[in-house]
């Protein structure tokens, strides 16, 4: 069997043989640690797979990037398989094509020496046929079927298209996908959970390898090299800009693989409907992704604010099921909060949310009220079965904040595991947002870990930080680094108050950088549990040199927003 790692491995060559071949992909998390934490997950996947192969296998790697190059080097030494590394030029001119055709020639010789005969003309014919199949069918299918079409084509096979699955249209939001290597299975699921469907895919594992056919008139090696460099849609290693989103889609997700130097530089052109997400490969959690995609789909929806009649006994509920805490809010017909509660989510998010719902139902009964409608939000919003609608916390936060502070144009929300920043327009609609990509750095969790390293609680930390005299700077890279740094600072005899102040500054820097990307809109509102921490508030004020507005109960903004949405979207018939 031939295994290969990159869409720059010329498929014509493999199709020109009778051997089966397989593009390396994976949906199980990688366990290898030898490679350090610095390489992209796809490269690690290839390494892991390469180490499992045996002497009858061939492994083809394109040196598309430093990560692949190193993986290729290591596997040439360590794998039992026969390994070939295709040197890929960086340019796309005539000299580069000439060079690449030489490399492809070496590849055919390598395969022939491994006992795999190659007929290039046959290979080109079969490849072009496959391209036809992909291009005709990709417009007919969506979601998981679309992924199946591409993934089988990557193995040189034509997926059967079941006519019962043809494009259905319907109410689901249409999401386009572009960017680098992506774990398709998890991605499709996340989109579907968010209420959408993937309608196009222009990534390495999608249409990009099939975007053009190979000329079969000229010398075959040159023709293949020319297709790869000149005619197919280029990978980010060649261009800083990728031409942009699918017009027909409601939203485009641009995936930047974590630890990839190229895709990071690409700025999709159509900003309105496009959202950059940094993702690992394979993805081991899809909850956050679902939220982000959901928020992106909601971003361009404007919402009108209704005003209900006075004196009605109907009230509205919002439940925010976050990763650390779950919040419930009840509002009356005028939007006034009549009940709110925050509890720890624990390990059974759905139970916790339903418990809060039950408590709120009882509360309203006791007071002679009736819950008209309930909307859930937050990380676990899909688990709240008694909610009639689910809206992302991005939109809900924005809604809640706008109600209290109509002048607000920016929001920083720091929760337990997530931090997010939002920009609002004068109607209170979300114009843009960003979420922390990598890890717990700059979240409530970060604070807790640091506080425990200092053997304090977070409140004590902030009161101590006020006494700080010395400027200590702490790594903004990650929780793990910061923790060992704190330990060594203690060891060096630095004062706890200075270290605490340093930590708050680190959080402010981290979240501040994200906020600056949105253009630092003011007035700024700070929400989420961490907003109760005076140390972080102080540090943010210093960072932005501006006043910061904080709601009385900053934790419940998401749930409050959800309740407001429930009120606005209610009609008489919702009342139960």
């Amino acid at each position, binding site marked *: 069997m031939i295994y290969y790692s990159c869409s720059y491995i010329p498929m014509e060559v493999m199709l020109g043989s009778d051997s089966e071949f397989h593009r390396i992909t994976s949906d199980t998390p990688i366990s290898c640690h030898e490679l350090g934490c610095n390489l992209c997950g796809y490269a690690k996947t290839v390494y892991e797979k390469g180490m499992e192969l045996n002497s009858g296998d061939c492994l083809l790697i394109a*040196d598309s990037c*430093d990560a692949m190059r190193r993986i290729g080097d*290591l596997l040439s030494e360590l794998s039992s398989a026969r390994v070939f590394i295709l040197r890929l030029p960086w340019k796309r001119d005539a000299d580069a094509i000439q060079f690449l055709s030489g490399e492809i020639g070496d590849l055919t010789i390598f395969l022939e020496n491994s006992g795999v005969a190659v007929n290039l003309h046959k290979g080109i014919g079969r490849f072009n046929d496959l391209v036809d199949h992909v291009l005709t069918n990709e417009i007919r299918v969506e979601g998981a079927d679309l992924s199946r079409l591409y993934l089988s084509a990557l193995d040189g096979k034509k997926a059967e298209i079941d006519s019962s699955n043809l494009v259905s249209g319907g109410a689901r939001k249409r999401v386009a996908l572009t960017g680098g290597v992506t774990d398709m299975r998890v991605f499709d699921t996340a989109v579907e959970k968010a209420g959408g469907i993937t309608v196009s895919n222009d990534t390495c594992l999608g249409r990009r390898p099939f975007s053009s056919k190979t000329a079969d008139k000229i010398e075959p090696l040159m023709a293949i090299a020319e297709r790869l460099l000149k005619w197919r849609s280029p990978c980010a*290693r060649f261009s800083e800009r990728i031409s942009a989103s699918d017009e027909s889609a409601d939203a485009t997700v641009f995936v930047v693989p974590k630890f990839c130097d190229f895709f990071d530089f690409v700025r999709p052109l159509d900003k309105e409907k496009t959202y950059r997400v940094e993702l690992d490969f394979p993805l081991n959690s899809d909850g956050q992704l679902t939220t982000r995609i959901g928020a992106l789909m909601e971003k361009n929806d404007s919402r009108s604010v209704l005003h209900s009649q006075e004196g009605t006994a109907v009230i509205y509920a919002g439940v925010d099921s976050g990763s650390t805490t779950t919040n419930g809010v009840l509002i009356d017909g005028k939007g006034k909060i009549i009940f709110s509660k925050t509890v720890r989510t624990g390990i059974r998010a759905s139970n916790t949310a339903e418990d809060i719902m039950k408590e709120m139902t009882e509360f309203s009964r006791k007071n002679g009220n009736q819950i008209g409608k309930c909307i859930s939000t937050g990380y676990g919003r899909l688990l709240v079965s008694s909610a009639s609608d689910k809206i992302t916390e991005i939109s809900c936060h924005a809604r809640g904040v706008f109600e209290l502070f109509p002048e607000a144009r920016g929001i920083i929300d720091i929760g337990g595991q997530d931090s997010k920043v939002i920009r609002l327009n004068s109607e209170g609609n979300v114009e843009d947002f960003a979420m922390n990509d990598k890890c717990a750095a700059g979240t409530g969790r970060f604070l807790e870990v640091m506080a425990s390293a200092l053997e304090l609680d977070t409140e004590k930390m902030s009161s101590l930080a006020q006494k700080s005299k010395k400027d200590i700077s702490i*790594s*903004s890279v990650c929780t793990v680094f910061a923790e060992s740094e704190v330990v*060594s*600072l203690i060891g060096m005899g630095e004062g706890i108050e200075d270290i605490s102040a340093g930590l708050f500054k680190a959080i402010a820097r981290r979240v501040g950088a994200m906020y600056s990307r949105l253009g630092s809109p003011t007035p700024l509102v700070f929400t989420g549990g961490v907003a109760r921490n005076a140390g972080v508030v102080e540090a943010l004020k210093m960072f932005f040199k501006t006043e910061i507005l904080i709601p009385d109960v900053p934790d419940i903004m998401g749930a409050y927003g959800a309740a407001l949405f429930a009120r606005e979207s209610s009609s008489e018939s919702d009342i139960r």
Partner: protein
Amino acid sequence: MSGKSVKFGSFLRNYIDHTDKFKKWLQLGMGFENFRRRHFPDRDRARFVNTVNHLALEEVYLAIKGSSTVWVNLMAPSELLLSAGLNPVSAEGISGALSSMHLEDTAIAYSSQAGISDSLCTFHRASLGVSMRKLLPPPKLVMTTSILCDGNLPTFKRIAREYDVPFILIDVPRGRKPEAVGYVVSQLKAVIGTIEEITGSAFKMEELSMRLSYERELMENLEEIKSRAKDEYLPQHLYEHMNSLYVLHTLAGDSRIAEASRSIGERLEAIPENARKVLWLHIPPYYDNELFNLFLPGSKNLVVANELMWDWMYPVDPQRPLESLAEKLVYNPLCGSVVDRGNFCLNLARNFSVDGVIHFSHWGCRQSAGGVSYLKKVFEEEDISFLELTGDCVDHASQGAGQLRTRTEAFLEIMENRK
């Protein structure tokens, strides 16, 4: 050196929001230091070391003044630029200079606000920040090779765009294959065309040949260090190692360092008895740090060689200037596989008969860190102690100072026990 620059940096920080004033003070301070290093070299140090220290600074100073500078990466064939009267400065060196003043954070924050990911190497992030913030005047040109690392291409392209100046990429395929030489030669010819356009005068091949003969002489002189390395070494601080690896790439064709290398044999010193000799792989941190004090010249712990000072040494041939420049690029050991790198480093370790090897894995650098597991194996098979230090060469906030010290000291103890 570093204490002073940190002080100067904290003075400059007052003007960080006033770019014009900032630039004025920076130029003044660097101009002063440049004058000092040039006219009042340190008498206790070897002439070669003083020259290197001076040139490393002068390069950045010229960039601050905006004197016909070209921003390059460490592996760019800067001989072409020197021959045309242009001043190469490596963008990594600009980041390093900021870092030595503890000012890198503002540049890094700037690129991060522009959406550049935190996983990109800080050499690149800091230089991007400088260009985005226009902390330095525009260069005439930006030029990079596809070696050493991936970050070069997008970073330099972006820098050129920020300054709106021409961008040159020299694509050097990996694998050290003879077939690649012709591909590179034809690109070097195109580079010469661009240089002619920019300078408005014809490129003089004789000038290039002359540069290459300086370089060849420099190389031959430096070989002396290697040939005597059993009992003698050139005393250098860790930051001076950094200066030399830097200058030997970007100014290899400068007559001043060829000249300074002539007397190098006179300044070699006897290796103290019981000294632990270390080979440094990749780059040490640029900012003042604990490691500087652990490896003082004359002490028991000596860094006797560093990888990136020797990789660039290639016997260029003034008779065949373009071909031999292309070969120098293609056959660079770091342009090969991790096995090539391993062989090269192992040879260095043998030449300098070192007791241990330290690999500094710089955050975000995939090409160097990606091969560490293999290098470790290679050295351990030879019974040479190997330590991987992880940290950041530029961002002093990510150094993990205490850890660096503890781990290095433990390593030195292990080396001691093995002797």
